[in-house]
């Protein structure tokens, strides 16, 4: 017979659990690699090279990490308040849509006006995409998990509709894509001849600011109280509904910014395949970071590295790059179990003994 006893998680386990989860999930990748008949060590070497092999490779990882930092923050801030925002993907697309609606010629102006305008528009669009489900939750009790998930599909269809309609590039020869973002609305490149763009700085700044907000402000305290014990927060005079709606605004805005970065920093125009699931991966990033904003940066780097490394490996030896999705999914489940190991101790008991 075994029994489970709670224990106090130490500072060490807060770091050890995510790191351990990352290592274990990478290690477990050996199983599908072996099943695919690949040389496991060579595959790992290729992945490593794909991430750290050159400056270009590493900046590619950072470029990939940029949207993940923002969607990861979006998930972390929402989950902290127990608002299950699974709609990061849709919010990202709506942010991107707003960015191209304004930034691809509809509004003219100097960069110092246009760039902030595009970012604010994208953030607001993302926020709107989450405020609706949050309102449905607080007003009608409609489960936000399901509504945000379903809205992802609605928004993607809406984006496709716009790309075949009002926002279609007139010069695009009928392809469903938007007109390119104008020069003044483009996020500057950070390094010559690299794709890395200023979106990374936005993400890093957002992480630092969010860390401060969560730990040092009344707003962060209210948000945590609502997330961790809503009845007690309500009893203590904290406006629970209003707090949740503000969390929705913030979370949606962060995911919307991720979309802005992708079109205004990387792609230059919007297509319906802009995101390979950054919104969903952001949930993994947030969980790997144990919902800590600063941890999100590191977790996003890990997830980005897995994707970039798997791409390189896949091109070289032909093992499907879905391996990356496998590793990321496994890391989510392992970090979850790791959290359990940190919080509880499993004790073997001989029969006849019992808990105290």
């Amino acid at each position: 017979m075994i029994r489970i006893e709670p224990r106090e998680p130490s500072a060490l386990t807060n770091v050890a659990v995510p790191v351990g989860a990352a290592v274990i999930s990478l290690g477990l990748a050996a199983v599908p690699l072996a099943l695919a008949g690949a040389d496991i060590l060579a595959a790992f070497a290729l992945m490593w090279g794909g991430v750290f092999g050159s400056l270009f490779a590493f900046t590619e990882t950072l470029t990939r990490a940029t949207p993940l930092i923002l969607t990861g923050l979006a998930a972390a801030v929402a989950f902290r308040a127990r608002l299950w925002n699974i709609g990061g993907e849709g919010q990202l697309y709506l942010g991107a849509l707003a960015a191209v609606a304004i930034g691809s010629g509809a509004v003219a102006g100097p960069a110092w006006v246009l760039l902030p305008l595009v970012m604010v528009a994208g953030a607001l669009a993302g926020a709107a995409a989450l405020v609706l489900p949050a309102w449905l939750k607080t007003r009608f009790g409609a489960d936000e998990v399901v509504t945000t998930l379903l809205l992802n599909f609605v928004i993607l269809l809406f984006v496709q509709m716009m790309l075949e309609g009002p926002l279609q590039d007139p010069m695009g020869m009928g392809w469903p894509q938007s007109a390119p973002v104008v020069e003044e609305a483009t996020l500057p490149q950070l390094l010559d001849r690299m794709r890395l763009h200023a979106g990374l700085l936005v993400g890093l700044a957002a992480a630092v600011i969010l860390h401060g907000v969560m730990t040092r402000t009344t707003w962060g305290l209210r948000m945590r109280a609502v997330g961790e014990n809503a009845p007690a927060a309500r009893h203590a005079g904290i406006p629970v509904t209003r707090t949740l709606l503000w969390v929705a605004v913030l979370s949606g805005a962060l995911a919307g910014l991720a979309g802005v970065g992708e079109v205004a920093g990387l792609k230059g125009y919007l297509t319906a395949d802009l995101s390979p699931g950054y919104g969903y991966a952001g949930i993994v990033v947030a969980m790997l970071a144990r919902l800590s904003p600063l941890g999100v940066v590191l977790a996003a780097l890990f997830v980005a590295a897995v994707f970039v490394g798997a791409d390189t490996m896949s091109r070289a030896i032909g093992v499907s790059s879905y391996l990356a999705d496998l590793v990321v999914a496994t890391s989510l489940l392992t970090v979850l179990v790791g959290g359990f190991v940190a919080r509880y101790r499993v004790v073997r008991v001989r029969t006849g003994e019992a808990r105290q």
Partner: protein
Amino acid sequence: MIEILEILANPNFWAATIRIATPLVFGVLGALLCERAGVLNLGIEGIFTAGAMAGWMAAWLGAGLWGGVLVAAVAGGLFGLLHAVLTVPLGLSQHVSGLGVTLLATSVAYFGYRTALPDVSSPPRIEPFPPLDVPLLSELPFFGPALFQHTALTWLALGMVVVVWWVMTRTPLGLAIRAVGDNPDAVDAQGLSVYGLRIGAVMAGSALMAVGGAFLTMAAFDAFFFGMVNGRGWICIALVIFASWRPWKALFGALLFGAFDAFQVRLQTAFGEEVPGQLFLMTPYILSIIALVVAARRADYPRALLAPWFKGQR
């Protein structure tokens, strides 16, 4: 107006309604079993995908159609076991674990498919479940093509409604499952295993979900495509609330949804010139959200849903 009447008068519309509803019936019944036992299973979307892939792959490799369905059910049961172990004895977040299972099952399916078939550009096809013509009835005008020319899996779905309803309302097992989703302490105090009931219900429910996925590749279509599940799992999670966790209402909800979806496709062909097609494609998702909002107010959630329970801790 005339167009609408024409759609309703066409038996193909009703046949399509039932065809669209079939995988949802499996999915909603599966979600119902899990949630009645107190476990939210957001792994459903991935389990659908894994079931679609596994069933099709087994049939393609020569296991036969029913062999494929069985393989799909086993695959679903295994992912259910994973979700159940994480959420029941370990008591971890059902939301996060479910999403993790969806991500894992989806990537396992995609990776497995790509690994088995690295170079094909057009997906290989299987001989899918044929429509079963019910003797005599299938020859009826209108009702024959609408109701009596469906595949064996559709009849299986209908059979599962009866089975789940019977088990839940008429057997000691169903009584225990309903109790464990309401108050696990009550079940524990009477000497039944909370963990056993919950793990079993989640595995059985997940197997049903996977068979719903297998319907897509083995009856509705004859091949596996990436992204083919396309939110059907999430729709089931909304429908189970709409159905108040009752099997017959689940069937009704799935049929209602199927009718709207079939209707939407036909309106699209009728009005596709003037109105963008995406507006029609959105309607199933929007309808699900509306159904959820309407049902949420009076929703009588199983009381122990989402709450972890540990033996020996009152």
